[in-house]
């Protein structure tokens, strides 16, 4: 990694406890701008926890203590003047199971806009435009343009997951966090969502947690290998898979544990 790389997310000695259990240990990591970074590691190693730190949504899950720093675009998100709604507007998340809201496709896409603007400032024509643009960006417009008033929860899983991504776009996020976005999908849908990720990279910084080594290899530019709450290795993806420096990384990638 050269010195002039721009980093979107940097953490410094990040420690996190769930009650007494320490889930993240001295995590210091720099995630570069505009690329896809894969987070890999065995179950329970803290990948999802780390991901959830980046928009502080962890704090909604109860007894969590955090120390250390997370800088996003240079701003420490644990500063007192950080507003969580504004932070989460800039850093969206996609989940393992597609979780479209039980409202229409249209309303799902504009949900973020409604949440972040006063009612009188929302114009119907602007919303229509945003819906078309967002759905086009995730390749759903042609499939769904006649079904905008259908319940989103009735769509196919692949469409649901793409819609969950589209739902973040009207807010013009900097970062999209994805927590095993394809693990509920079949291989065809996985391929489609991966293609979508590749087209979104560049416009957005994407961090993806995945259990699927092949997927990490296919979509990510850089990879972070975590084990028991610690960062083991962080390099370019091809280096990690071809010449891992840490023997534990090699063991995991080759499937000796997981």
């Amino acid at each position, binding site marked *: 990694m050269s010195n002039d790389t721009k980093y979107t997310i940097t953490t410094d000695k990040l420690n996190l406890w769930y009650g007494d259990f320490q889930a993240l240990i001295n995590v210091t990591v720099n995630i570069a701008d505009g690329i896809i970074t894969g987070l890999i590691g065995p179950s329970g190693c803290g990948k999802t926890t780390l991901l959830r730190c980046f928009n502080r*949504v962890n704090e909604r899950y*109860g007894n969590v203590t955090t120390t250390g720093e997370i800088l996003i675009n240079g701003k420490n998100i644990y500063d007192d003047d950080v507003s969580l*709604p504004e*932070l989460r507007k800039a850093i969206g998340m996609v989940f393992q199971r597609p979780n479209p809201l*039980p409202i229409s496709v249209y309303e799902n896409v504009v949900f973020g806009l409604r949440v972040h603007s006063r009612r009188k400032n929302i114009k119907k024509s602007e919303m229509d435009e945003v819906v078309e643009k967002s759905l086009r960006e995730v390749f759903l417009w042609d499939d769904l343009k006649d079904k905008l008033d259908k319940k989103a*929860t009735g769509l196919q899983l692949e469409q649901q997951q793409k819609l969950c991504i589209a*739902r973040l776009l009207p807010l013009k996020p900097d970062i999209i966090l994805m927590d095993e976005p394809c693990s509920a999908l079949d291989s065809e849908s996985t391929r489609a969502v991966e293609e979508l990720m590749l087209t979104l990279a560049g416009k957005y910084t994407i961090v993806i947690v995945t259990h699927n080594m092949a997927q990490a290899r296919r979509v990510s530019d850089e990879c972070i290998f975590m084990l028991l709450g610690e960062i083991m290795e962080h390099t370019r993806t091809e280096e990690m898979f071809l010449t891992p420096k840490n023997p534990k990384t090699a063991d995991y990638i080759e499937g000796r544990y997981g």
Partner: protein
Amino acid sequence: MSNTTQAMYTETPFVRTKRRYQGLAKYIFMSMTLLMILPLILIVGYLFVKAAPVLSLDFIFTNPIRGMRDGGIWAALLGTIYLVVISLVTSAPIGVLAAVYLNEYAKDNWFTRIINLAVVNLAGVPSIVHALFGLGAFVLFAGMGRSIIAASLTLGIMTLPVIIASTKEALGAVPIAFREACWNVGATRWQTIRSIVLPNSISGILTGIILQVSRAAGETAPIMFTGAVFFKAIPEGDLLAYGIFDQCMALSMHLFTISTQVPNVPTALPYGTAVVLLGTVLLVNAVAIVLRVYLRSRKKW
């Protein structure tokens, strides 16, 4: 593994025993279900047969006469409606909003745990104890006197914990994934509750509230000390016949009175009263079911 092909996949003695137990279990459970329905049918049927001589529209819309040995039950029916409506109008908003707080906002600490424990225990307090509380708090301390408002508030206190519990359950049934989706686009808790949680739990919340109608309508003890009287003549057919500081008659109380306190009441009269009480409750429950079916049909996940 070269057994004879004829002996493959056939029933062994052990399988036969298992099948017999399984059949037995099924019939036991089925007979319990039937046993449960049977008394209900018998009771309702018996009530209607016994009540048949007095049942008519006149019975509903006229006041009791001749020392409650004749006439209808209008004053009692209207009193019950007043008590139930006022008690739920006061307890439902408090209960639902408190439940929203407990389920959506409150952190899991000793304070919330004590509140939750209190709610569970309050739900188990006998109604006669609520009656004494109502007498002390509303009738005497708050100076409301024995009145509809005092009796309604007592009923409200009694239904409150159950409304809180059922509302919490309805809110808890909304998948956490919906909340996560909202939080992660930066929705505040209130925006999440208003746009997603409440619309998807409203049917369960309403059901919980409406089921309390039957409890409020049926309880005698809490209103006996706080506002219900043996007899009170009111204009027949006038829905606004009671003021909230008046005392009133109530169906449950009336049933108690004419069954045990007044001699020489024709047998059909208490049964008729019971049928009206039952009918009122069933009517409200039917409305609840229709409402729930309607609201459910709009949600899908």
